[in-house]
């Protein structure tokens, strides 16, 4: 019951609608006659037998109908939380079904949404998903990969594959309870309606939808501590006049589409001796002497929905822009953490530092040493600075109301050594940059943190967070509240 004990399932052959709880769980709920038993988002009522049938202290006995009703595999290793509903009204309401306020919640049931259609659940898609569960698998739980069209909201179950223990790529096809928490991969999302339905039954989805650059900017700008680190940004409403205004004041701006990624559609507009110069990714630089000429060129190229951003004098080394990709994620205790940062050296020709355009990644220590000298203490302090700034960004974005667990941030220094937040995105942040720079441990860490956070969202936060002394109050309480099965 400490959230760490791993239980296993035993079959109560010859019984129906009955379960048998181990001593610690049974004592925690006051040895009731009936309990409401949940796994994932699925709940069933059951009689609670006081007999133990010779099971050991970690066995949860389930009669065959209860087990198949909850779609639980027989060889399941799970964690458990238990309690009694205190709210009398809710207890009476639940009592109509379950007959008691006692509840036992088995889990975590964690889902990875990996495709839109069942047919796309190929081994090629499934196998990389097992990397996500490397750190959580051994702690117990049900880890499933599923497609969007296999969600049965009515029956609160999904059809998909569960990862079998052993650290390999063995998946078992079947019907499983609807996970209580989900993370997304391969850019697959839920349509708004399904998202709302899942939310309403208490299913939490990390990075539940992709946010765009404009809203991200508004959320970040609401955090006073971040303002000195955000380039001046305005929404691109009304087209060219905004661009010209900003250009007049700042001399150089970027125009970015709200939904762009990988530097696509980014324009750089600069004022040069009376005229203008425009650079678009991959195209040669164009010069315009007058506003009219600029307007006729730029007009059709401006994104309908986007923003204009101050072009900062960013630090470069040997003609290459040096910037930083921060992997910002939430951990198994629900707190923001930075598993790693990778430096990027951009192409000497282009204004973007994307790998696709002739750039290459370097270790963060090397990138910082390029900028600030190789004194390890300076490098350490600069790295801390980037981490602190990134965590502030995470907290600010979260106030937008989305459940976020995995972000990619672009940070850079200007020529005065001041750090800037260039961009934040949650569109399947790219962890591959970690192995591209040769840091495999970081790659696997970045892969597993989203699953650890999803386990936390499912109500089984890792107790790594329990302080030795003091500091208990709010965390102990929060864990318990989140453990209440969705009703």
């Amino acid at each position, binding site marked *: 019951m400490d959230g760490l004990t791993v239980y296993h399932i035993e079959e109560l052959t010859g019984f129906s609608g009955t379960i048998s709880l181990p001593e610690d769980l049974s004592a925690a709920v006051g040895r009731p006659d009936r309990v409401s038993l949940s796994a994932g988002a699925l709940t069933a009522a059951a009689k609670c037998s006081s007999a133990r049938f010779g099971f050991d202290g970690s066995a949860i006995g389930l009669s065959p109908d209860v087990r198949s009703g909850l779609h639980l595999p027989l060889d399941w290793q799970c964690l458990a939380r238990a309690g009694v509903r205190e709210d009398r009204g809710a207890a009476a309401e639940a009592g109509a079904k379950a007959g008691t306020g006692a509840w036992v919640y088995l889990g975590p049931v964690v889902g990875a949404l990996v495709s839109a259609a069942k047919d796309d659940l190929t081994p090629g898609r499934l196998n990389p998903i097992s990397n996500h569960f490397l750190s959580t698998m051994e702690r117990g739980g049900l880890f499933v990969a599923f497609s969007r069209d296999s969600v049965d909201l009515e029956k609160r179950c999904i059809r998909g594959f569960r990862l079998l223990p052993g650290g390999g790529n063995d998946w078992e096809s079947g019907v499983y309870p609807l996970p209580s928490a989900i993370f997304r991969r391969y850019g697959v999302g839920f349509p708004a309606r399904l998202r709302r339905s899942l939310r309403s039954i208490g299913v939490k989805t990390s990075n539940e939808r992709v946010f765009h650059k404009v809203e991200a900017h508004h959320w970040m700008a609401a955090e006073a501590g971040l303002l000195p680190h955000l380039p001046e940004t305005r929404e691109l409403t009304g087209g060219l006049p905004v661009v010209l205004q900003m250009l007049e004041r700042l001399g150089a701006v970027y125009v970015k589409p709200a939904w762009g990624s990988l530097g696509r559609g980014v324009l750089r507009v600069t004022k040069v001796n009376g005229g203008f110069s425009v650079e678009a990714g991959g195209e040669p630089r164009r010069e315009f002497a007058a506003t009219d000429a600029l307007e006729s060129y730029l007009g059709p190229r401006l994104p309908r929905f986007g923003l204009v951003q101050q072009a900062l004098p960013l630090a470069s080394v040997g003609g290459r822009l040096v910037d930083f990709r921060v992997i910002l994620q939430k951990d198994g205790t629900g707190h923001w953490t930075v598993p790693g940062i990778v430096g990027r050296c951009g192409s000497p020709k282009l204004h973007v530092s994307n*790998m696709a355009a002739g750039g290459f990644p370097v270790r963060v220590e090397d990138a910082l040493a390029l900028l600030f*000298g190789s004194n390890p*203490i300076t490098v350490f302090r600069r790295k801390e600075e980037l981490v602190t700034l990134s965590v502030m960004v995470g907290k600010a974005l979260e106030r937008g109301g989305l459940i976020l667990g995995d972000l990619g941030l672009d940070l850079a220094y200007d020529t005065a*050594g001041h750090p800037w937040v260039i961009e934040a995105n949650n569109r399947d942040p790219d962890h591959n940059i970690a192995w591209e720079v040769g840091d495999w441990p970081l790659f696997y860490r970045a892969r597993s943190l989203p699953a650890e956070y999803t386990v936390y969202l499912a109500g089984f936060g890792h107790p790594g967070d329990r302080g*030795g002394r003091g500091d208990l109050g709010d965390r102990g309480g929060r864990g318990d509240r989140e453990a209440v099965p969705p009703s």
Partner: protein
Amino acid sequence: MMTFTFTGTSGSEPVLYLTYSAYRVQTRDASAPDLPSRVWVSHGCRRVLSDLVPVLEEGHQLPASSAAVQRLGLVEGLPYRLKWVGGELVVGPVVGLHLAAKTKDMATGPHSSARLFFLRYGGVGGLAFAFATDGLNVSEGWVEGYYWKPEGSEPGPTASPGGDITTGGESWRRTRGLAERVVKRASSEGLPAETNRRTARFQAMGAEFLGRKAMEKTETTADSRVPILPDTTAGGHLAPGRFPLPAAVWRRCGRLPPDTLSALMEKTDGHVFNSDFFDKWEGFRRLSTNPSLRRHLPETAPLTNVDDLVARLAARHSIVLKQREGNSGYGMVLLEPDGDGDGCTARYRVGGRTEHFPSADSLKRKLGPLVTGRPYLVQEHIRLPSYKDRVVDFRVMMQKDHRGAWQPVVALGRFGSPGSIVTSFINNGYALPADEAMRRVFGLTWRGAFAFKCRLVDFCAEVCRALDESGGCYGDLGLDVGIDVEGHLWLFEANKLPFHELALYAGQEQAYLAVKSGPLLYASHLAGFPGES
């Protein structure tokens, strides 16, 4: 993080002048009185009843009467944090790092390694100081030492009373030199890199670019440390002073008389870590009561009589003799029974020396003095895997973070000298990050090594939590874990004064700095001010 500095003004009564935002710090859970009045103000272990006077003009500099500054022991110009606890205004954090027995032995100069303990001061603030046993006066409620003075704060006396002690700078340079040799040794036995075309291409580009830049720099400036950009992050230095007793103490030195320790524990409400420096036997006893950990502890007992030992050898079990309080495997002996008969072979730590005892009697004669001399332990021998004839085990540095949660700061594999029974890197051994070590020893892929490392650090966190439950307060432990040839984890020891430099010898300079600077965060947490990451 909202911080305020205090500046002294005249006044013979304790008075603090607070702006609205200073006064309203943390109003949500505040027990702040509705109107400024007379309240208890605390700074470390000092408490003074003071008048609060509101100031209309907002700002981060707060005036305080000289009586308040003196009686509270406030250090002017430091970025303090404020909070209300039960109607009392707490100025903090005030944390002390106990680093040595004598103040003159503390390295506090501009290149000292003691500076590294304060690397993350920026996320903590307040008064953080290093002290030695001889600077501590618990009964009179003060301590003399060196506090971290962030750059930009008011200038003060910079000359230290005992002269400028910069031995730490020299030792840091020496350590780096030695570390480079150890790292070279480790890489000479390396595995081919697990790589692919894309990584290889990027790495080649990166290496070429970095190499060219390094060369350009040496050509132009002859100093590769000259930065392109200015360093605008806050630095600072250590400055001497006399302070109130801190609200939390990190013990990085064993030399503190027991009565002083208990007095300090009482004053700080137990906020001293690591509180108990238990020996190997006590550590075993504390953890062996935990049923889930019991199977990860090698059977251990004090060596009280030699007959008992002979009986074990007769049962064909190898055993290890260890000093109860030794470290680095000092004084360790491995006894392996012969294939037949009652003889055995002893293997010593030093120089891989061995000695054969043909009979039980000859062994008894040799070991007899051990029973009466320095306390020894008898421990079941765990067969650890080896790589190129080097025995391998793991050292995981566990620290509590700014939230008081245990974190594996760095996990390392230790490779002993070829043929040696211990895994010390001294005498031709080396250390590596745990992932790389697991690849070498167990022939794992990066993926397999990562999964294994997760098991290792989960286990270490469990051990640390069990130690917390066994009594005492800990925040900086170095766990020695063996992984036997079957993959089972064995806990050998939890070190209370862990050797942080091991990270340097494993080539992990940044991890070393993280380990050094971590305890300040937990100290701040214990002092009531959770730091920022």
